[in-house]
C-alpha cells in the first residue's frame, strides 16, 4: 500500500503565526495578560503542527515547532510545561541538546 503524505494545514500555520505575532506585539507594548493569552494559543497550535510535521516526515520542522511551543509556554508563564517539552527534546535527540540549552538560556535571561 502506498504511503500517503499527511497534509500540514496552511490555515493552521497562518493562525499560529499570527498568534505568535500578536503575542509578541502585546508583550512589546507591556500588555502582559493579553500577551500570555496569545502565547498560550500559539503554543497549543505549535504542538498540533509539530505532530502534523512529524506525520508528514518533516522532522526538522517538527522539532522547530516543539521549540516554539516550549518557548511560547515559557513566555506565557507555564515554565514547568515548557521545561517538560525541552526535556523531551533533549532526551529524544541528545546531539542537539546544546541548541535546546541555548534557547533555555535566552528565555532565562529574558525573565
Amino acid at each position, binding site marked *: 500500500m502506498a504511503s500517503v503524505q499527511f497534509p500540514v494545514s496552511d490555515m493552521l500555520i*497562518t493562525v499560529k*503565526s499570527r498568534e505568535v505575532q*500578536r503575542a509578541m506585539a502585546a508583550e*512589546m507594548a507591556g500588555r502582559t495578560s493579553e500577551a500570555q493569552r496569545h502565547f498560550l494559543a500559539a503554543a497549543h497550535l505549535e504542538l498540533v503542527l509539530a505532530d502534523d510535521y512529524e506525520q508528514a516526515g518533516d522532522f526538522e*520542522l517538527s522539532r*522547530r515547532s516543539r521549540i516554539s511551543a516550549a*518557548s511560547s509556554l515559557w513566555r506565557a508563564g507555564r515554565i514547568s510545561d515548557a521545561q517538560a517539552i525541552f526535556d523531551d527534546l533533549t532526551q529524544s535527540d541528545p546531539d542537539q541538546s546544546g541548541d535546546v540549552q541555548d534557547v533555555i538560556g535566552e528565555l532565562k535571561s*529574558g525573565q
Partner: protein
Amino acid sequence: MKLRLADLPDMHPRLLWDDIAAAAVAVFEDQGFASPFPFAMEVEQVPGYGSGSLALEIVDQGISAVRVEKLRRTMEAHRLVELAAIGVAGLALFGAGGHVMRDVALRGSSADYLIGEENHLLEIAGRSRHRDLQAAWGDRRNRLAARLDSGFFVCVVEFETPSGRLAFAT
C-alpha cells in the same frame, strides 16, 4: 525600487503587518526622514536576485498616522526598531527575488521566520545606529551557520543612514 509598506500584507499574506508597517513609519520619521524613505540594501547571493545594491524608496501611503502615534506612545524605541526591521526585511525580500515570509515561530527570546516553499530560515536584526550594523550581522550569521546545515537568510538593518544587508548563505 519604490515599495509601499501598505502592500506588505499582499507580499506576505500569512503574517500580520499593521503594527510592523506603522513602526517602520515611526522609526524613519523619528530619524528625520520623510516618505518616500530612502534605504540602501546590500544583497548577497539571494536566489532569484543575486548580489548587488538594492535602492529602496519606501512609501508610507496607506499607513494610519493614528496607529503610528499610538505605537510611539505605547512601545519603547528599541522595540519599534525591532518591528521596523521586520518591515524593511519583508520589503527587501519581496524586492530581491519575490521571496515570501510564510511562517514565524518563537525561538527563546527571539523569532525566526520561514521563507518560501523551501522553508529557509531567516533571522532579522534591527539597530538604530549605523556603527552597530556589523556586529549584528556577524552575530546573526555565525549563529545560524552553527545551527543549520541548510541554506538560510540573514537580514540586518540600521535606521541612522539608513542601510542594511540581506544575504542568503549555505
